């Protein structure tokens, strides 16, 4: 069955340190992959997406992600975390390759300490 796994439920990181969030997928075809961020009381916001081509994708707010087909992974990274990055992060896969039906992982909660 198709699935999206985010192994880390909760990550604590110091402000200024680097951050990496893991995402693994199980999907038969070439996936379309996304990372979203959800802040309290806010809607989900798209950080970046991968469709094809260059496997290193740049997004908003200084985030990047790398698609590794051999590992079925799409990990999100940020070199230096700011306090405003505290939020929940979701990896998602498009199930349809057509009109955009998304399957989300369970999310990773990021806490930023001073």
């Amino acid at each position, binding site marked *: 069955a198709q699935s*999206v796994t985010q192994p880390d439920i909760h990550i604590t990181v110091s402000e200024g340190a680097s951050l990496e969030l893991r995402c693994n997928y199980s999907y038969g075809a070439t996936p379309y992959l996304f990372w979203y961020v959800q802040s309290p009381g806010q*809607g989900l916001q798209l950080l970046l997406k991968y469709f094809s081509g260059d496997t290193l994708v740049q997004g908003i707010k200084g985030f990047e992600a790398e698609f590794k087909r051999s590992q079925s992974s799409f990990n999100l990274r940020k070199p230096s975390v700011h306090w405003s990055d505290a939020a929940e992060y979701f990896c*998602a896969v498009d199930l*349809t390759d057509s009109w955009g039906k998304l399957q*989300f992982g369970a999310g990773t909660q990021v806490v930023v300490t001073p």
Partner: protein
Amino acid sequence: GAGVSQSPRYKVAKRGQDVALRCDPISGHVSLFWYQQALGQGPEFLTYFQNEAQLDKSGLPSDRFFAERPEGSVSTLKIQRTQQEDSAVYLCASSHDRGTLNEQFFGPGTRLTVL
């Protein structure tokens, strides 16, 4: 102009009551999605509209759930005879056109609590 809006933001219902959740997508957006997000989980797809046509309702958990978008803009998600397991945040998203290449813009959600 503004983004996707949803109302009410919070809804408390007694078990067995019917509820209606409203989504106002971004003006002119063709595609509209409903997702259900249980506590501590990621959003799960409920249903999809392209204009007024409901093209996929495979995620609706039971026949108590019904969605409509009669004029291809505002959408309503109705839940009849609510149960405690219906407690969740209901998210609406819209995109300019059909297709994965079109970014989905999410509303803030409606938090439904069934007592």
